[in-house]
């Protein structure tokens, strides 16, 4: 009969009307992301050897490693910069990182990368060398990153 398909469809939508909803209440309830989620990056300034393999592996020139040589001729990290605005989140830098198994640069689940100012899209990790050579280094991202994000 003509119209039977329509009635069947209306039955389905009515059934769905009473079914539990699947909407995620996102800002209140944060999603439980899988471990491999490519949200944003963490970087450990202490384990980085400034080998620049990540910078070379990056297809888009997102990573910039700034370093100097100390008295012994060893590379010492100054600053690690990423321009997330051009990042493809392909993971080649993480793959390339030679510090295994816990890579120096790694993915984390924080995906809220929106920001008000263009300079906030840069991620900067600075290694500070205290006067005493054996001091504990700060692994906090510096002020540019800590600037409040516009929500």
């Amino acid at each position: 009969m003509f119209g039977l398909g329509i009635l069947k469809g209306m039955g389905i939508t009515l059934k769905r009307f009473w079914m539990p909803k699947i909407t995620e209440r996102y800002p209140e309830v944060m999603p439980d992301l899988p471990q491999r989620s490519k949200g944003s990056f963490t970087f450990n300034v202490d384990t980085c050897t400034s080998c620049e393999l990540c910078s070379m592996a990056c297809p888009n020139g997102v990573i910039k490693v700034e370093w100097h040589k100390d008295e012994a001729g060893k590379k010492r990290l100054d600053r690690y910069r990423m321009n997330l605005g051009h990042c493809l989140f392909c993971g080649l830098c993480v793959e390339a990182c030679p510090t295994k198994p816990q890579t120096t640069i790694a993915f984390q689940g924080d995906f809220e990368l929106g920001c008000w100012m263009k300079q906030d899209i840069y991620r900067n990790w600075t290694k500070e060398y205290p006067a005493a050579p054996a001091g504990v280094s700060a692994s906090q991202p510096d002020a540019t990153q800590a600037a409040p994000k516009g929500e």
Partner: protein
Amino acid sequence: MVDFLTALFNFWQGFWGVPKTSLAEALPWMDILWAFVYLIGAFVLWAVNVIILIWLERRVAGFFSERVGPNRVGPLGLLQPINDAIKILSKESVIPQAADKFIYMAAPLLIMTISVTMYGLLPYGPGIRPISLNVGILFFLAVSSTTTIAVLMAGWGSNNKYSLLGGMRTVAQIISYEIPMALSIIGIVMLSGSLDLGAITDAQKNLWNIVLQPIAFVIFVISAQAELTRSPFDMTEAEQEFVAGYHTEYMGMRFALFFMAEYANLFAMAALGVILFLGGSNGPFLPGWIWFILKTYAFIMFLLWIRWTLLRIRVNRMMMLNWKVLIPISLVNLLLTGVGIKLWQYFTEGRV
């Protein structure tokens, strides 16, 4: 002419506050007062309905597609329309340079006027009705079909190709679907013997018209969706074809008027359906107006259910459905109704 002048004279007399001869001649004064009261009442009802319907539509749409709909602003998201209104009011209202400015600006006002007028005609309960017209249903249809002009004005005045195409479709669609709608209503008029909406309500005290006129009800629902230009007949603002149809170029408050008028018309049309087929304000225990509102919203839910299940029909099939299916069926229905009434009269009252 003389009557008119007398009435005018009495009218001004009324303002002076001097009842001239009798109460009957002083009535215009009272009428004006009541007209204002009802006008404000109709406006309030219009605005409240629009707010509720905008929320309801979005919420129901969400529920059908397994979402929750707006739920952030206020309890259950009830303040969402207010939020929208603030947003839309704060927008700049730009008039396109190439637009026909007078027509462009007049269209939203006209469409709002029409929808408010429709609210003035409905009997909301026993004794609650702004205007008691003895040709109420005729006037309602006449007013509602004026929407065509407003939509065409918007489409033409915007000077946009999408708007124009959307407007043209509307004219074709609304004018065509007036006919089956009117024909489906004539059956009711024959049964109740009156064009007065109050009288039609009263005639359904014992038996709702939907029982006597099921085919007419189906035709009414289909053509009501078409008149309201809602899915499956949302040709006018077919988003995937004409971006937003006739109101592509509108923004800010002018767009809001179109938007609100659409929802206001939904309530008015559902109310008409309730009055004609579902017994109007008749019902046990509760006051009449509560029954009326309950039935109207139930009917609106039904229309929303249709709208959120179905998809847009093809234009030529829409016309075919109207001219080749609905009109012949409604004519046959009319014939059967006439024969039925005569047979009923013959067997019960013994007269033809």
